[in-house]
């Protein structure tokens, strides 16, 4: 176990976890902000896909 089993450990775990969570989910947000660029690849014809299946 990396974190000590004490109140200090719980505080430490909470601070690291909370900050890392914000960093990581912000990273996901940045990736999603780039998603509109995918549309430059072209457009999928939904009707055609549905008919093919």
């Amino acid at each position: 176990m990396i974190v000590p089993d004490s109140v200090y450990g719980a505080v430490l775990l909470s601070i690291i976890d909370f900050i890392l969570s914000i960093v990581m989910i912000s990273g996901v947000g940045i990736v999603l902000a780039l998603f509109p660029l995918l549309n430059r690849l072209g457009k999928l014809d939904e009707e055609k896909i549905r008919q093919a299946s």
Partner: protein
Amino acid sequence: MLNNILEFLQAMADQTGISHFWWGNLVMIAIGCTMIGLAIVKHYEPLLLVGIGFACIIANVPGSSLILPGGLFNYAYKGVELLVIPPLIFFGVGAMTDFGPMIAHPKLVVLGALAHLGIFIALIGAKALGFSIHESGAIGIIGGADGPMAVFVCVKLAPHLLPQVAVAAYSYMALMPLIQPPVMKLLTTKQERLIRMKQMRRVSRLEKIAFPIVIGIVVNLFFPPVAPLITMLMLGNLFKECLVTERLYKTAANGLMNVIIIILTVAIGSTMTADKFLTFKTLEIIALGLIAFLGGTASGVIGVKIMNLFLNEKINPLLGSAGIASVPIAARVSHIVAAQEDPENLLIYHAMGPNLAGVLGTAISGGIMLALLGVK
């Protein structure tokens, strides 16, 4: 002769459950009945509470073989214990979910982490009350308001607390329409609640197909401890969005989901035996769970207010509380509170973005917690 008859009757009674029945069983049976009553009368999460309540009743009838090794409820619990059931729940949820609002408004994704401060308040509180760090982590994750994730993390960190953690998580999720609004109103002004959000852009099919693939890769790369859940969520979503697997996504979202809910609910209910559940620790866990929900709601709202200090285009702070993962209950609560001020303010679609991000946020928090605690 009379003695022999009495001995026979005594031996027979010993083989039934009657001789092992104690007041704790009666209390738990009453709790089980209350759950079923709430589901039927108040419509609080009936799909969950009926199964949990019934299994709780049966688990507290001494002599019931369903919860013993070899019994059906015991096999259901094995599915939870071996972490088969929670990923399958996520699979079904993925097939039922449109991630469009989250993709359309990436700025709101960060609320999926901000609204989880409650997890850490409960974690520190649990540790201060004398729980071990692993138990504290399992209790804290209740604040994520994500049932399957709470079950998953709890089984990994402190499986003996599963009944309390699962009951607290699912009960508070059902009670969110009562828990969240007072906090939301307390922390916002009328002007803030009246803020209208700009129309979102339309998300293309290509983006919706790319989303589960990208997130599947990211989660497995960075958060292996919780990857099974999010990976299955993304698989279910890919089945839905790719348009060529309609039969599979409909099965995942309907038939399979229903089967898994039945298994999950009887598994949780069957662990609610009086000897395990009727302890002071249960009351502490229930109280910490409530603090976690209140803290998460507050941190989400305050998070938006802080973001608004730096944004030209203001965000309605009521969206902050939707960052709690419980989909779509938290989003619906945001919409209802906003509609009380302005019935034409349709916040539901906007609230779904942070709400869905909350699922990822809980998974990320849980994954980091498992990694820091050295649990694989």
